[in-house]
């Protein structure tokens, strides 16, 4: 009976090819494959064919690209969904499959984790309890407490990258609920306040530092964006304290207080995330709860373009090589935009996979311009390839409460959650 069924089934002719060096010797053979075949069947088929020509070949996992999209379902469903021409020989591109992220560390933080950054194999994270937790790749953690009255830290940015295996001299800009941004430098395992940036009227939600580390921009609940001068030699934006004030706090070593260079208003609700434009130094992108992502010209202090979204945005990230912008909203769907194109308001792709709740944060993979990671209030993190919108690459489970922040750098994914843990995963 089974044989009878298989003969009735439709068959597709396909060939494999690849742009990767390792796979240069894929035999150019046309295969006749039943449409019920899935990725695993194709994997088996391809591995066996390569084995016939290459004796040293070891089985590997492949991903298959037909045109621009990944094959994730059976061939029949794929053909039906994308209306693929089956008359001609189907050309299938083979990409060596990404290995699943390996859990590396599970670090207990003293409080909810509000932000996480990765730089030079160090993971910096801030907590709502006023701690900065630093973890190196080996899992050694350093906990540094902020010496300040209001301890709710909300966001961070690295100003001076740590040297290899040495934290000393690292500078970190931290925004807090107390409306201040503080530039801390780590010396001898302790935090020292270098600068205090004062000017926001409500909690600072997001901060970003320019590539030459001389400027910082921050967004706040007060709906404003402020630009700060971080240059050590700059004196123009220093805040002149009144004499009485300086007297009372004489004992403490004073940190320099600065006021913003420029304040940009334009959002009508809380600014949730801010990023420097990677391809134009004086531009920046900010996302807000007012359903829009705005590109700003910071020199002119004006709006360049506004991307309207269907819901309130919670975060955004820009990709230098493709120029694409990935955003997350107060729903379960990360959305991909192309801010360079004129029709930037159109969603290029929506990634459906998270359960309910919000996607809290999205970040690109700096090593692969097609991949990004998203974390959600459904307690999971997911990695995605932009060529496959229907299903994620990998789901990272483990957090027991809402995941609030994520970072991807140096082949490490670090996610911080409301269950007071930072989980670190290693990717290929």
């Amino acid at each position, binding site marked *: 009976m089974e044989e009878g069924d298989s003969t009735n089934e439709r068959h597709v002719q396909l060939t494999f090819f690849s742009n990767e060096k390792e796979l240069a010797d894929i035999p150019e053979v046309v295969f006749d494959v039943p449409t019920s075949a899935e990725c695993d069947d194709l994997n088996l088929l391809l591995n066996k064919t390569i084995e016939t020509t290459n004796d040293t070949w070891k089985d590997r996992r492949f991903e298959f690209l037909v045109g621009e999209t990944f094959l994730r379902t059976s061939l029949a469903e794929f053909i039906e969904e994308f209306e693929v021409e089956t008359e001609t020989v189907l050309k299938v591109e083979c990409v060596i499959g990404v290995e699943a992220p390996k859990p590396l560390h599970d670090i207990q933080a003293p409080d*909810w984790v*509000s932000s996480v950054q990765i730089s030079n194999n160090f993971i910096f994270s801030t907590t*709502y309890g006023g701690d900065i937790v630093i973890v190196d790749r080996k899992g050694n953690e350093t906990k540094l407490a902020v010496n300040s009255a209001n301890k*709710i830290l909300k966001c961070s940015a690295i100003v001076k990258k740590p040297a290899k295996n040495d934290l000393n001299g690292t500078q970190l800009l931290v925004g807090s*609920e*107390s*409306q201040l941004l503080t530039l801390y430098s780590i010396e001898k395992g302790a935090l020292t306040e270098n600068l205090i940036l004062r000017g926001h*009227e*409500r*909690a600072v*939600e997001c901060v970003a530092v320019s590539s030459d580390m001389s400027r910082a921009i921050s967004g706040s*609940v*007060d709906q404003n964006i402020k630009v700060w001068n971080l240059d050590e030699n700059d004196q123009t934006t220093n805040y002149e304290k009144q004499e009485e004030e300086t007297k009372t706090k004489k004992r403490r070593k004073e940190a320099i207080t600065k006021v913003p260079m420029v304040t940009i208003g334009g959002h009508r*609700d*809380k600014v*949730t995330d801010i990023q420097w434009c990677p391809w134009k130094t004086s531009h920046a992108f900010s996302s807000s*709860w007012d359903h829009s992502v705005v590109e700003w010209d910071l020199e002119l202090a004006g709006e360049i373009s506004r991307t309207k979204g269907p*819901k*309130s945005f919670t975060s955004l990230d820009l990709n230098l090589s493709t120029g694409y912008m990935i955003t997350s909203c*107060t*729903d379960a769907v990360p959305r991909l935009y192309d801010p360079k194109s004129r029709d930037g308001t159109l969603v290029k792709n929506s990634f459906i996979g998270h359960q*309910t*709740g*919000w996607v809290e944060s999205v970040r690109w993979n700096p090593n692969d311009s097609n991949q990004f990671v998203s974390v959600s*209030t459904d307690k999971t993190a997911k990695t995605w390839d932009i060529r496959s919108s229907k299903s994620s690459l990998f789901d990272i489970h483990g957090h027991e409460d*809402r995941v*609030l922040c994520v970072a991807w750098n140096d082949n490490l994914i670090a996610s911080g959650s*409301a269950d007071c843990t930072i989980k670190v995963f290693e990717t290929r």
Partner: protein
Amino acid sequence: MSTKAEDIPKKGKRKSTSTKKPIKKDEFGEKLDVKPVLPKVVDEYDYDSSDEEDLRNTIGNIPIKWYDDEEHIGYDKHGEKIIKPEKKGEIETFLEKMEDPDYWRKVFDRQSGTDIKLTDEQIEKLQNIASGKYPTIGYNPYEPFLDIYSSQKEIHPIDNIPAPKARFIPSKDEMRMVSKMVHAIRMGWAIGPKEKKEEKKVYDLWASEDSMDNLTKSQLSRMRVHMPAPKVTLPTHAESYNPAEEYLFDDDEKKKWEETEKEDRVMNFVPSKFDSLRKVPQYDKFITERFERCLDLYLAPRQRKMRIHADPTDLLPDLPNPNDLRPFPTNLAFYMRGHKGQVRCISMEPEKGELLASGGQDGTVRIWMLATGRCIKTFDMGGEVTSVAFSPIAERTMLAVAYEGKHIAILNTGCGDKLHIQQTEQFISEVPTDEQEDGAVVHWRKAKDRVTLTLPNEVRQVTWHAKGDYLATVAVDDIAKSVYVHQMSKSKSQCPFTKRKGHVQAVVFHPTQARLFVATKIHVREYDLARCVLIKKLITGIKHISSIVPDASGENLFLGGLDRRFAWMDLQMGNKPWKKLKHHTSAIRSVAYHKKYPLLATVSDDGSAMVYYARIYSDFSKDNELYPVKRLKAHEKADDLSMLHTVWHPIQPWLITAGADGSIALFTY
């Protein structure tokens, strides 16, 4: 060949009939045609005058076709076969055509099988017919009209007979009668015309019986759609007194008949046989059968009932697609956990919408960051918190808290803008609590970051006036002095109502004017606080009001009740609710109306929140709109309680609900 052979006879037949027809049928033509011929009659026996043209053939009016295969074409009157004349060959026909000058006027007669030569007369008739004229030769349809009798009066008589003599002589008979009457009058004998005796009119009771005027509507309709009474089925052979043997029951059949129920029997009698009609006894079921027949007639339908076959879905009101009414909250974002026991009340920070305050059974007031669901501050009040309310002024980080122990606290939350916190500190320090009169019922005290009021009764609810100076409180108990209005700037409290008008459940200030809506269990009263008068008393239709919320203009009130009812009162439309809904299966605990979006939410003990699209038009020509758009479910049940309070986010279309399970849920669009 065969087709040709058929064709020719057809032609011949048509022509021969057409020659006959005008003579036979057109009578008018016939007369005129015949007349001129008549005088020429010599002897009618000289020739055959009958219409029948060719009497030789006696086969009658049958298709000639039947004789096609025979060698004769019929029979003459003596019964002899009439032999078909020999068929002419084609050459012969052609020769004839060429030679015979009369060929064109020859017609083949199928009946006789010969060619007939048409006369000149017949040809002329045919020509007349072909050209659309009258077939009769020489007939003029337009002969001049001779009008013999006209409407005009002639002065001369038509005939010449003189008038008779009698016309000129008076009648003797008449003269005699007149002289008799004259004589009678003279003599006084003449009697006038007899007086008519008036006959007594008799009322005809049945006169109107036959007329249609006095019939009732139902009688008329019964006549129009007449439904005859059901007929009695006719008796069958089995009912005969002398049925055939097969109709009679044998033992088995009889037993079966007896065993079956009376209603189920096929026949309601047992067929029986009698020798003669004379021996048939009296029918014992006669009376019952007649009676049943009467019952049947009585119950028979006499009227055709028009039943409407309506699809039940058509009767539902036409609701718009909820997708067109977006945005409204659709899914649960997350829970904020921290309270132990019930979360009784929540309040949103005005304008920015970053902070949320909640009060719980555990005696704490918590301040949350809504974006992340993080509790950033906790105040321990020392008594179960019953109500919290953020000051409506965004510049003051002030929160009014009612908690058990007959207290109200007006706290400086210390969250938000540093500048505003300082201003609020200043404001609280300036509240003149020291200038209290002796014997005041409400005691004002000041602590480091708060003002505390001690009231004579436990407080159920606290609410601010839109300007942020006044706040009103409602007592839990059913007493006369249950409502107090407190003024922050003067630290004074007053009790506007001294008479008990019902158990006050909730109060709310008019959003723009110095008015107060007071909701007792079944009524809402609107008071003018400046003039101290009752403006309006509203009948809500709810048996136990639990929550009252005005819209931004104060023209509409939204009420929720413990009897599961929700009511929308439009104050301009009178004192009755504009809309009443019952969408919850359990008591409604709280109602909220969004400040920016046309959204309304009710939360209930059944663990669900109903979100309505509620658009208020200030334009009178448009009706307000109220459509249910979403039922949101969250929170676990604790002691049969689920959702206790709800508020809207001040900017976003997001709903926040407080649960009896100690969590606060955020629903986002």
